[in-house]
C-alpha cells in the first residue's frame, strides 16, 4: 500500500468512510458502497421490531466492509455510553463513532456531553472516534482524552453546505497528532477534495451520496475527489501569489516586431 490510512491500530487503503444512512433501499446502498471503494462504514443501533434491523449487516459482510457503529440519536453522555456498549456487544467491535447532539434541529454536537462520554468510553477500552464541532481547542481536548481520531464537522449533518470554516479545519489538522476526519455537511466532490487538501486523513460522508440523484455515480465522484485531494496535498501545491504573476513561459528570447 503506497499511502495507507492508519486509524486505531487498523490500516486502510481507502480514505473515504461512507455511511449507510439515507439510502432509498439496500440495493442502492450496496451499489453506492461498492462504487465508493470504502472499507469502513457506519451503522446505527435501534430497537428490534422496526423491521430494518440486521439486513444491512448481511450486505457489509458480503463485501468485507468493516462496521463502525455510531451513537446517533443520543443527547447525553449516559445515552451514548450505553449505546456504545450495546453496539460493542452486538457487533463485536471496539470501534465507536460517538455522536452526542444538543438538539434535533441543528444536530450540532454538545461538547460538554461529548467529552464526558469520551472519557468513559476510552476508560472502557473503546477505540473512540468523536463527531465534534470544528473547534480546534475541543479537538485538542478530545485527543488528550484518548480519542483515536477527531472528526470535525464541515457543516451541520445533512446540510450539504460544504466546509464552512476551512481555516478551523486547517488549525485542527495542524494541532493534531491523531487522524483528522472531516465528518458531516459535505455536499459534493469538490468539498471532499478540499478536506483532503487541507490535510485531513480521511473524509466521512453519507447524505451527499445516498441522497444524490445517482448515488453510485456520486460515490465514485467522492472516491476520486478524496484521491485527488490527497494526491494534491502530497504533491505540494505552489504558493499563492496575491500581488504578482509568475510567467510559465521563458521571459528571454522574445522576438521583436
Amino acid at each position, binding site marked *: 500500500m503506497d499511502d495507507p490510512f492508519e486509524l486505531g491500530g487498523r490500516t486502510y487503503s481507502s480514505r473515504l468512510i461512507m*455511511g*449507510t*444512512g*439515507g*439510502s432509498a433501499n*439496500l440495493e442502492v*446502498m450496496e451499489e453506492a458502497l461498492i462504487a465508493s471503494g470504502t472499507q469502513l462504514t*457506519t*451503522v*446505527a*443501533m*435501534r*430497537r*428490534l*421490531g*422496526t423491521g*430494518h*434491523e*440486521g439486513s*444491512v*449487516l448481511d450486505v457489509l459482510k458480503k463485501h468485507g466492509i468493516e*462496521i*463502525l*457503529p*455510531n451513537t*446517533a440519536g443520543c443527547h447525553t453522555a449516559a445515552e451514548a455510553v*450505553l449505546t456504545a*456498549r*450495546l*453496539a*460493542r*456487544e*452486538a*457487533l463485536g467491535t471496539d470501534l465507536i*463513532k460517538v*455522536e452526542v447532539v444538543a438538539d434535533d434541529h441543528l444536530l450540532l454536537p454538545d461538547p460538554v456531553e461529548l467529552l464526558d462520554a469520551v472519557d468513559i468510553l476510552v476508560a472502557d477500552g473503546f477505540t473512540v472516534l468523536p463527531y465534534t464541532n470544528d473547534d480546534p481547542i475541543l479537538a485538542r481536548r478530545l485527543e488528550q482524552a484518548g480519542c483515536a481520531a477527531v472528526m470535525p464537522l464541515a457543516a451541520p449533518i445533512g446540510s450539504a453546505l460544504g466546509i464552512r470554516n476551512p481555516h478551523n479545519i486547517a488549525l485542527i489538522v495542524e494541532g493534531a497528532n491523531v487522524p483528522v476526519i472531516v465528518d458531516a455537511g459535505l455536499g459534493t466532490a469538490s468539498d471532499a477534495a478540499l478536506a483532503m487538501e487541507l490535510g485531513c486523513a480521511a473524509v466521512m460522508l*453519507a447524505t451527499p451520496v445516498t441522497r444524490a440523484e445517482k448515488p453510485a455515480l456520486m460515490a465514485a465522484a467522492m472516491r476520486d475527489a478524496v484521491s485527488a485531494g490527497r494526491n494534491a496535498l502530497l504533491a505540494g501545491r505552489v504558493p499563492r501569489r496575491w500581488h504578482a504573476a509568475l510567467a510559465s513561459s521563458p521571459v528571454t528570447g522574445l522576438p521583436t516586431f
Partner: protein
Amino acid sequence: MESQPEHTVWVNGTATSSGPGMSVAELVREMSDRQTGIAVAVNQSVLTRDEWAATILTAGDRVEIVGAVQGG
C-alpha cells in the same frame, strides 16, 4: 407507565405481561429470527451473549433489545 400492573416487564418501551420468569435468551428468540448482531440491556446494564440464558426477567425490569440499522 408507573400505573402498570406490577408483573409488567418493559421490552423496548412496551409493557408486556409475558416477560416475568422468561430468560433473555427466550425473549430474543421470540422477537427475532436473527440471533447475531443483537444486544440486550436490562435496567441499563448491557448483557454479554453468555449471560442471556441465565438472566431471568422479573417484574419491573426494563429491557432494551437492539440491532444495527442503516445510519450515519
